[in-house]
């Protein structure tokens, strides 16, 4: 591989070595230095509403059971039996009080506690050989939620999630907190594309420039009235904290009129006004910008659009959340959910779902054309010529770094971070600059957990003293591993 320092320096200048979109060595570094440390979105509390409900989600190759225990708390449990490493849950979703390993029958409650160990006395000599009490499936090293969105990190030292998201929380609220009860998620649809994961993340983080070209057809068929070239460039791209996105400029009107313009019913508009801060309301009502696509670093993206779903002039807004789950340097699993405010009228929810299906997801008419481009890019990025080419990702700044369009002032943009009107690649550069920060920092050895090993005992793997239950975690999980 080209020297990593050079690659990262080029990326920070907005000159992207094309091979980073299809490179085994880069992918290995992403696995070790990025996806083993960053906060990764795995689901929403509404997906496991009842005690015992679970869904199984992955962070790269690591499978986690996201389960709501009898105590009402949601946990992320590493889906690997403590004994021989089988997956204790091989379904994707369901409701269970226990997970039993099919190999030797060890069983665990839905809060992860080991409760069944066949022939414990005969085989292990009871607790003298293997202290059963207190053993649990490995919890995700860190877990936290924001607006019911469940994030986990494989790094027990990960910064608190609110700090990690930073100013982007302001924008995340538009998608996930339109009323105090927040959203419900449906799906996900999952499919695999032969494209590098970063391409989608970058696209949603700030690529307004592609909309009029890639998505010409959806305007031509009357699905979406907005993304004509002249209109799209009046919007903004913004970045705040660990995320950024794009907006549309709406015609002069009040907050209520603008929310009605994109199809929200009055009940939901009333909820938004009660839920959003004055600054959050001002961004739409005073400044005239409507949130569109966005990405939270590294791989959670979201969209808010308002297509026509029937043969009339009415438009209906929808929201999708999705992760770009890396499978390899040239393959990504798209995990795409439909999101809707839980308190919205059922008729609105049905039509919003319809709008989602027509625009995004596995059958979405926007998404179809995006992916075609990304597959093509990834394929060519794998060759040797791509190692000679630095892609120019400096749109929106002059050679000396001066922005083509100056950052909006607080009078023009009431949100945190920095926002610019017009076509630019601020979002993509910000995203990849963070990517470079993670890739630069070597991974430290992860903490290890050994089960049933006693301090000083024969065959001990881990030198630290066992706790009462005989399970040794290098880090305490208290307060991080579960959420109410």
């Amino acid at each position, binding site marked *: 591989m080209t020297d990593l320092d050079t690659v990262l320096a080029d990326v920070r200048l907005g000159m992207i070595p094309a091979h980073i979109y299809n490179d085994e060595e880069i992918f290995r570094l992403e696995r070790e230095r990025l996806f083993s440390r960053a906060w990764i979105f795995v689901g929403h509390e509404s997906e496991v509403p009842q005690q015992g409900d679970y869904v199984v989600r992955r962070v790269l190759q690591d499978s986690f059971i996201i389960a709501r225990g009898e105590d009402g708390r949601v946990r992320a449990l590493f889906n690997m039996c403590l004994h021989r490493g089988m997956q204790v849950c091989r379904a994707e979703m*369901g409701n269970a009080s226990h997970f039993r390993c099919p190999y030797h029958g060890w069983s665990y409650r839905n809060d992860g506690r080991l409760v069944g160990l066949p022939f414990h006395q005969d085989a292990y000599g009871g607790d003298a050989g293997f202290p059963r009490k207190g053993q649990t499936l490995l919890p995700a090293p860190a877990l936290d939620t924001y607006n019911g969105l469940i994030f986990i990190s494989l790094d027990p030292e990960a910064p608190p999630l609110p700090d990690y998201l930073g100013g982007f929380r302001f924008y995340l609220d538009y998608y996930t907190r339109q009323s105090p009860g927040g959203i419900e998620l*449906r799906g996900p649809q*999952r499919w695999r594309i032969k494209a590098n994961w970063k391409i989608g993340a970058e696209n949603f983080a700030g690529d307004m420039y592609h909309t009029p070209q890639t998505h*010409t057809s959806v305007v031509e068929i009357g*699905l979406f009235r907005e993304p004509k070239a002249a209109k799209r460039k009046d919007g903004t791209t913004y970045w705040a904290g660990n995320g950024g996105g794009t907006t549309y400029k709406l015609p002069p009107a009040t907050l209520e009129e603008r929310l009605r313009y994109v199809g929200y019913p009055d009940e939901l508009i009333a909820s938004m006004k009660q839920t959003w801060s004055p600054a959050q309301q001002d961004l739409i009502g005073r400044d005239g910008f409507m949130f569109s696509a966005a990405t939270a670093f590294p791989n959670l993206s979201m969209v808010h659009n308002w297509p026509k779903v029937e043969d009339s002039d009415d438009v209906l807004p929808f929201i999708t959340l999705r992760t770009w789950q890396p499978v390899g340097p040239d393959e990504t699993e798209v995990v795409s959910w439909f999101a809707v405010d839980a308190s919205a009228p059922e008729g609105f929810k049905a039509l919003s779902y*319809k709008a989602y*299906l027509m625009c995004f997801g596995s059958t979405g008419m926007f998404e179809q054309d995006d992916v075609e481009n990304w597959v093509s890019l990834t394929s060519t990025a794998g060759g040797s010529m791509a190692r000679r080419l630095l892609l120019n990702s400096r749109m929106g700044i002059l050679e000396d770094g001066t922005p083509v369009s100056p950052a909006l002032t607080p009078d023009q943009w009431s949100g945190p971070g920095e926002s610019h009107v017009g076509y630019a690649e601020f979002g993509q550069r910000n995203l990849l600059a963070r990517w470079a920060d993670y890739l630069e920092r070597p991974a430290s050895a992860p903490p290890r957990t050994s089960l049933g090993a006693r301090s000083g005992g024969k065959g001990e793997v881990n030198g630290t003293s066992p706790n009462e239950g005989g399970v040794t975690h290098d880090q305490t999980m208290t307060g991080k591993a579960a959420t109410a």
Partner: protein
Amino acid sequence: MTSIATDTTGNGGPYSADSPLGGHAPVIQRAGRSLPFGDERHLQAHQWLVDEAYLLDAQHYADWLDLLADDIHYIMPVRVTTAVGAGFDAAPGMAHFDENKYSLSRRVARFRTEHAWTEDPPSRLRHHITNVRTFATDDPDHLVVDSGVLLYRSRGDVREAALISAGREDLLRQVGDGWQLARRTILVDDSVLRTQNLAIFL
């Protein structure tokens, strides 16, 4: 006569009726065992499916749209892996396709623009139709037809082709001399699709 037990759902299931977008859908269900292969109704249904497969292979979508009833419900649930006895095998409230005639007509209209990049150049498609079973219903103008479909989709020169395997249940309605599709349920056999999108029909 066959001794195979009467199957009241076949490839259909509750998906159309359960969909939040299925309120308009015809609810007619199959009655009795599959018709003998020599039955005229089976022969007509089978030929209809094969003729339709040609239109889908050739991407003659305007002609295909003419075969669809105005009240069609075209649904492809998102299949999920669940434990035996869970009582469901699709993501609740979610589908890949959950279409009426209008949304299908938009999809077809898009392919007729010059800017539907995902199918320009077009995929080479082959819908292989098999395991066709035809059932009478309580209404002589309607037949229920189960079939299997294996779609081979090849794009570009050396990209790995995509395969989509699914069971389908169709509700066919006699209109004049011919038949129209009034309801289709597509039970795809993958939980995670291995194709870049569903810019095709099944």
